[in-house]
Structures are given as C-alpha cells and as structure tokens.
C-alpha cells in the first residue's frame, strides 16, 4: 500500500481516546472471586474454626470439580461471543462419554459392549470421542449458519436428540470396566491440566489469531463482518465445531474420571457452563468475552461448591444460595462495568 500521500498533516492522535483503555474486564471478576473466597475464609474461622483457603486438598478439589464445566465453558464462551448459545453441550458430554467409554473397555470386564473391541490403545476412544463431539458441533454450526434458525432452538433440538442417542446407545446400561490407560486421564490433577491447557490455547486463539478476530467481529456486528469479507457461515461452523470438540474433551474426561459412562452424564452442565461464561464477563448479546474471565467464572462456581460443603450449609439452602450468587455476581459485574454500556 502506498503511504506516500499528497495530503499534508502532522503526526496526530494526541487526543481522541488516547487515554481510554480501561482496566481489563477480568479485574472485576477476579475481585468478585476474591470477595467470595474471603467471605468463606472469614465464615470458616467463625463457624468451623478452620481456614478455607489454607488447605491444599481443598484448593485442588475446588478446581478439579469444575474442570469439566470449565472445558465446556471455554467452548461455550466462543459461541456466546458470536452472539449464539449452545444448550447441547451437556448432552454432548454424555454422548461422547458413552461412545468413548464403549471403546475403552478392558477385556477383564465380562460385560463389554463390543467384546471384540476391548483393550484398545487409549488414543482410539479419545480420537473417536473427539470426532463425535466435533461432528455434533459441525451439525449445530451448519444448522445455525445455513438454516438461520435461532441457536437457542437448534442446540435445544440437538440437546434433546443427543440425550436420546445417549440412552439408546446402550439402552440405558452404563459402560464400565475401562482400561487403566483410559482412566488415567481423569485421575489426580489431570482434568485440571486439560482444562488449563484448553483455556490457554483458546485464550491465545481468541486474542491473537484471525479465528478470534472473526469470532468477535461476528458477535459485534454480523452485517459488518459480512461486508468486511468474512465468510460468516463457515466461521460459525468452525466455532460450533470447536464447542462440540471441547464438549467431547469434557465427555472423555468425565468418563475417565468416573471410570464409567452413563446416559445421564452431563445433565444441566450447559447451564453451569453458560453461567461460568457470563459471570466471567461474556455478554449474551455477543461481541464481548474472554477466556480468562470464563476461567475465573468457573472457579467461582467451584469455590461456591467447596465453600458450601466446608461451611456445612444445608443442601436445601445450597441451591437457593447458588442461584442468588449467580445473580449477584452478574449484577456486580454489570455495575462495575456500567461505563461500558452507555
């Protein structure tokens, strides 16, 4: 391009907006997380006489128990950034868990689903599980991109169908007796590692690649994205495919962690994942959101779960409080970012 212009003019932009870069969105959410953790710490000393945070085991389980939600949430965040939504991820966790597990059975297990396909190397169930997630994601994406039906309904349909497939696959029987190789992925701290790796990859992808720029552009203004030459349909398929793939990862980790797969796995996970993303600052109207925020949002959910058990909150109150905290966290976020709205 030719910068040798004939226009005169000083080297400019002193003024407009020079100073308008804001504190990163995550700072807000991190504060909310810290606030919640400190409240638990305080209440811990008062009521239980124990520290909430100074307990390595608890810190581990706090993240471990939401790793699967977190993995899905990373995918869902991207979908929400495009202005869509994915209600099918919970069902897809169940489906991929079932299918992957059925190819990960050990020959020692007498009731293997495919007796001739036991003791396979662990990469096979993993690859098949990922492929199933990917395919389901592509299906979602294609449906949304080409038929223009609302993502809410498209993925609601997939959600119901995938859950049905899940139950049909083994007629409701659980799939157990998985090989040690396969269950290794879900053991110890590995689910957390998978979660963080996934988070880092997509954090980079969203911020530093064209994939990411297109994702934000579509969510911010589809029309603008289209006239800028972005192939919106193709990109949406990619984004939903990624979400499906990650649901596949989550399914594999879930099956591996529980050392079994059953048709009811992942029920309602989609809602937790969406909550994590939104608590983390992702806007349901599209165009706004970051993986770092989602990670923090996920950890907020984990902290709440551990905190409730720690404080011996009656189970009946846990849900009531959980709902209120979700609302409160989002309200707090809306208020702290009020300047962004106007």
């Amino acid at each position, binding site marked *: *391009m*030719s*910068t040798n*212009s*004939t*226009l*005169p*003019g*000083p*080297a*400019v*932009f*002193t*003024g*407009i*907006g*020079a100073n*308008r*870069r804001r504190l990163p969105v995550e700072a807000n959410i991190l504060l909310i997380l810290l606030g919640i953790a400190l409240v638990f710490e305080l209440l811990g000393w008062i009521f239980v006489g124990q520290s909430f945070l100074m307990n390595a085991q608890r810190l581990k389980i706090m993240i471990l128990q939401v790793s699967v939600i977190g993995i899905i949430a990373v995918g869902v965040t991207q979908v929400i950034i495009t202005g869509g939504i994915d209600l099918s991820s919970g069902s897809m966790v169940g489906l991929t868990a079932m299918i992957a597990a059925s190819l990960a059975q050990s020959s020692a297990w007498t009731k293997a689903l495919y007796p001739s396909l036991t003791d396979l190397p662990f990469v096979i169930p993993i690859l098949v599980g990922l492929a199933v997630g990917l395919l389901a994601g592509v299906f979602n994406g294609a449906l949304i991109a080409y038929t223009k039906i609302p993502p809410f309904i498209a993925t609601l349909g997939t959600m119901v169908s995938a859950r049905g497939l899940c139950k049909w696959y083994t007629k409701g029987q659980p799939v157990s007796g998985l090989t040690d190789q396969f269950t290794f992925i879900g053991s110890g701290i590995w689910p957390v590692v998978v979660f963080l790796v996934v988070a880092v990859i997509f954090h*980079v992808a969203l*911020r*530093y*690649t*064209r994939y*990411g*720029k*297109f994702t*934000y*552009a579509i969510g*911010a*203004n589809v*029309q*603008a*994205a*289209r*006239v*800028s*030459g*972005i*192939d919106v349909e193709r990109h949406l398929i990619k984004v939903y495919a990624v979400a499906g793939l990650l649901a596949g990862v989550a399914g594999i980790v879930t099956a591996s962690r529980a050392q079994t797969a059953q048709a009811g796995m992942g029920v309602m996970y989609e809602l937790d994942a969406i909550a994590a993303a939104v608590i983390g600052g992702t806007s349901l109207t599209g*165009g*706004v959101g970051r993986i770092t925020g989602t990670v923090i949002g996920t950890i907020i959910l984990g902290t709440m779960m551990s905190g409730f058990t720690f404080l011996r909150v009656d189970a009946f109150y846990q849900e009531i409080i959980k709902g209120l905290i979700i609302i409160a966290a989002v309200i707090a976020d809306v208020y702290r970012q009020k300047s*962004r709205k106007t």
Partner: protein
Amino acid sequence: MSSASIPAAARDRASAAGSEYLLTIENARKEFPGVVALDDVSFRLRPGTVHALMGENGAGKSTLMKIIAGIYHPDRGELHLRGKPIQLKSPLDALENGIAMIHQELNLMPYMTVAENIWIRREPLNRFGLVDHTTMNKMTADLFRRLNINIHPQVQVRDLTVANRQMVEIAKAVSYESDVLIMDEPTSALTEREVSHLFTIIRDLKAQGKGIIYITHKMNELFEIADEFSVFRDGRYIGTHLSSDVTRDDIIRMMVGREITQMFPKEEVPIGDVVLSVKNLTLDGVFRDVSFDIRAGEILGVAGLVGSGRSNVAEAIFGVTPASSGSIEIHGKPVTISSPNVAIRHRMALLTEDRKETGCLLILDILENMQIAVLQQDYVSRGFVAEKGITSACTLMSETLRVKTPNLAQRIENLSGGNQQKVLIGRWLLTKPRILILDEPTRGIDVGAKAEIHRLVTELARDGVAVMMISSEMPEVLGMSDRILVMHEGHVTGILDRAEATQVKIMELASK
C-alpha cells in the same frame, strides 16, 4: 425523459467524455418481496472521477451500490469491471476485485479497537501465524497520518463519536486501496469541517486514478466534488450529466419529477407566550448552564458542530437522560421530567436523531410504529386500543405526510429512510404536542421530502406549537428558524435573531 430539458450539447459531452470505463452495469433489476427496487438500470463509472448518484429516498441508490459491492445479487443485469464481465458472489469477492464501499448505515464492530476494525480479515501476522498487534497499530497510525485523521488506533470504536466512527469507516474503505470506492451518504453525520476534510481525501484518491461513486442528498456537495452524476427515480435510471452543465433546479426536477418552488417555506406567524423555559440546565461532563426560552409559534434553531452537546440537551429536556441540575418550566410552571413518559404527559415530543437506534420499531408495521406514542393518553379505553379510531387517524396522518407505501401493514424496515422519518414524525404529531423537539429532522432525506417536512414544521408553528429544531445543515437552520441558538462544547455560545444570523456568525460561535 426529463433530461430533455438539458441542453443537447451538454448531453453529448457527458456521454463522449471517455470510452474507457472502470465499471459498468447494464440493465440491472432487483426485486424485493413486494418492491421492485431497481428496474432496468444502467450505470457507468470512469476512472479518476467522482460520480454522484442522486435520487429521492427509496430511488434504489443503495440497492444498486450493494449489487456492485457483492452484497445483493441482481435478478438480472451484467456487471463489467475494467471491460471484463464479472459476477460478484460475496462482499469478499468485490473487495478482492478492487471494490470497496462505505455503507449508509455504520458498519463497525463497537467492541473492537479502531485498528482491529480497519484491518479485520487482513490482520498482519507474525511468523507464528499470530496477529501482530504492534504492526497493526502502526499501520493504522500510518493510514491515519496519511489521511490526517486524529484518532487513536487502540481506542474501542464504541468510545468514538458518530463523526469519528464515520471517519474510521472512510479510512477503512481507503485502506483497501481499491480502484472503485463507493460512498453511500458519507457526510450525513459530519459537519462542515469534517466534510471538507473528506473532500480533500476524495480529491487525493481521484488524483490517483480511482473511481469514486458518491451518494448524497446535499446539493451543494454535488457541485463541489462530483464530476458527473446520475439520477434515479423509483428504481429507474433517469440520466447522467456533467455537474458543470446543470443547475440545482435541473437536478431537482430530474429527481422529483416536478418543481419544488420553496425549500424553506418559512412564514411569519404571531409569536405567543413562552411555552418552554430552560434555565441553567447541566448534565455533568456533557453540557453546562444551558438556558433558553421558546414561545408558542416560534421555531428555535439549534446549531453547532457535531458533538457540541445539542442532542444531549434535547434528551435531557425530554427525560431520556435527565439533567443533573437546572430547571425546566412549561407555561411558567416548573416541572420535573424524569422520563419520556412524563415529558409526553406535558405534551412534548422528541424526534430523535438516530432513526434506527431510537426511532423505528423496525420489525413492526407502519401502523404500530405510528400509534405507539399516542397510546399513552389516547385511543385507549379500559386498556383496549380503539382499533378503528387509531387506524383512521394513522391513515389520515400517512396521507397528510405522503408516506410512500402500498399500505400501513408494511414493516417500517422496508421503507426508505425518508419515509421512515415521515412515519416517526407522524408518531409525534398524533400526540398533538405543544412543544416539538426535532433532532436532525431531515438527515438523510431527499429534497422533496425535506421541503415537505419544512412545510409541515411551518404549519405546526402556525398552529402555535413551540418548535426546537437541531440541525447540522446551515441552510436549514438559517432558512427555518426565528432564532438560532449556537452551542460549542456543551455551552451556549450565543442566541441569534433571524435578522442578524448569517452563516459566518454561526460558524464563529460554533467554533469559538
């Protein structure tokens, strides 16, 4: 053909002035459900020229341009680019073939930075395939320096004023380095200063041999920047002429198909008592100590540069974003207007400047759009809407305002901008306001409709309505107002009487 009125010699000159066309489109037709937007239209663009498109609202100008930019596919018609036939399948296709477009509606991504907006899909990558933000920002800075634009590359677009967003759009289009550059009403959100800045850019591009298609409703711009122009009416091609060969009236006749005798039919009407009195109105950080009165039958024009705070004052008076201090009196009684709901009860009306954002209920039909404000106080009994009454009121209003539509069940979305504006004016007239605030009432509106709106405002004033009219068009302010209030950076810098007001005086106040 109305072009018959143009001297024959001039017509010949226009058609013979060069056979080498950059882009041609022949016999294009485009139909939308229920509307033929373009019918057998042809258009030719020469390199190194600025070719203006003129026509009433809904004439099909934007539609034709969207075909050239690969957004719509014509039902019929051939497109030739540099002499070769070409089919454009997508906007990307058009961009890759050297056609860029600045759209009538702003098409930016608000939550992304200026640099990201400009280079979307063309981001510079480093050797790992990741986006190189440093280079991208530098490229933006270079581009802006070249165009003499003063905006920081890393600021988010939503933080920019409308005018600056428009400048970003212009810079983005220029950055494609394309041979054909389409500008669809690029100046509707700009004031004189930015307009002349844009014209400098355009002349520069022209000198580089690019072909520029320029759509505008502002006649003076045509004479200032365009080499030739084509006129459309009701989806048909009327003619192409050199702009040096014609007069204003010729063009208007071609566009409208009839004469418009009076652009500013200002009448002297008896001025009554003070209806609205604003004292020391302040909205922290936006405007300060704004005071003025408007009397019955008076039209108070409000002038100022873009971003001077005029719209904010209007919105504060109307309760959209209430002021932080100051007082408002209506007929001498102090009132607190905390929301538009309250304002309407005081029989105020506000025609907002952004039709799409704060005016139209886009997916609803004309009838619904027109009746929504009046339902607050009228045509409703026990919660039920008096369908018959409101329908005939809206029908009458549409006829009065000459809304161009087959029926009132059309979605307002499918009307041209000018007709949308008329529907919105109708919405407020139904409420029979005593105080009418008009914010850029003729923005993006063709001459014919403009004259009608002006006539309407005059009539309202005659009926004793107090009118406040914000406008960035100097001739409009000068032509229509009894007094002119000028704002600069949130302050009132002066109020001029009709007799003493001149363009120069207003500009002085607006930029001091």
